[in-house]
């Protein structure tokens, strides 16, 4: 109830961006508190992607651990096939693709910071990573056309989910007149990754 004096905030519940002007003192907190806080924030973002809600606060605590983990996971899942992409190729597409889409958003006047945008785009790749895992398991079923249909459905769901989740994060930070110009590269980015998933996750 009311405002807790910042220095008495329990370290593991401490959220620095909730009130950027507050004074806080985490210098002497136990190392476990630090670990727990960061794990909690990353976990919360994963949950937010899987179940989008209206909470904008989470967006401001950007971190790149989630995107890094997801890009590595996707790269591991999609590489190695015959005629398929290499690990570095997928990693470059996902990571640098996010950077390029971010650059586009910034140049068109989005009010979102670079790291926030990369963070959001990276986290919203999670549904596609899940779809890639799903496609890997489909490989064990029988007829090729059923296999393809199932993979198509899984990937389409992943694609739609990724778009929906990222729109939830990005809405409100774009200037009205240029919404389509900003949304199109995001859609294209997820489409390319979905295509890779459909083609090479097996």
């Amino acid at each position, binding site marked *: 109830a009311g405002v807790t004096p910042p220095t008495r905030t329990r370290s593991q519940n401490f959220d*620095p*961006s909730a009130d*950027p002007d507050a004074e*806080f*003192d*985490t*210098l*002497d907190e136990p*190392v476990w508190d*630090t670990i727990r806080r*960061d794990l909690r924030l990353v976990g919360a973002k994963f949950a937010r992607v899987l179940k989008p809600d209206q909470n*904008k606060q989470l*967006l*401001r*605590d*950007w971190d790149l*651990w989630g995107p*890094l983990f997801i890009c*590595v996971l996707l790269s*591991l899942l999609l*590489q190695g096939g015959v005629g398929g992409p290499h*690990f*570095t190729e997928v990693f*470059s597409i996902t990571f640098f693709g996010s950077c390029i889409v971010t650059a586009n958003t910034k140049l068109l006047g*989005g*009010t*979102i*910071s670079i*790291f*926030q945008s990369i963070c959001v785009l990276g986290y919203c790749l999670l549904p596609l990573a899940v779809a890639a895992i799903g496609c890997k398991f489909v490989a064990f079923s029988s007829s090729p056309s059923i296999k393809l249909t199932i993979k198509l459905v899984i990937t389409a769901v992943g694609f739609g989910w990724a778009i929906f989740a990222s729109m939830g994060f990005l809405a409100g*930070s774009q200037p009205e007149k240029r919404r389509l110009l900003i949304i199109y590269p995001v859609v294209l980015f997820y489409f390319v990754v979905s295509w890779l998933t459909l083609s090479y996750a097996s």
Partner: protein
Amino acid sequence: MSYNFDQNLSFGDDRPLTGLRSLKHPFVVIAHCAFRGAAIVFYVFANILSLSFIIQFLVLLALLSADFWTVKNVTGRLLVGLRWWNFVDSEGKNHWKFESAKDPSRFDIFEIRIFWGALVVAPVFWTFLVIVAFFTFKWEWMIVALMGDLMNLANLYGYLRYLDMMDEDLADYEDHEVCRLLGLPPV
């Protein structure tokens, strides 16, 4: 200047004068230097072990991530009493926030020097490795070295911004306090 006599006036503190045990936080110092040292060593000698590129990449990524997190969240505040935060407000603007210890003199001067030393030397090394990779046309390794460079530079940049911010309030800081924070001999 009073700090010259700090080590000799620590009554009841019977640590040896040299070696790892002379440090107040030997494990923290090891953690500070070990991850970035291991990353550089592993990168340089990676080709001797015949692991696949992917595994080497993942090992380096793990070491660099561990180093980044440790230096930002643990060793900075335990060795020099500094911590940097960066977050974004509702308008999408970047904010930097810093915490610093109210009593800087409780930090050991050797640990301060090791802290800043490792913080500066590692990015220099990585930059050299990027240049080597570039001129030997090993593009994949150049990307890896670049990643190491950026992750180490990020921490250096964060901590240096604190000094930059301190610059504006320099009137609040005495010269000898600034020097001690950096581990430099007093002016």
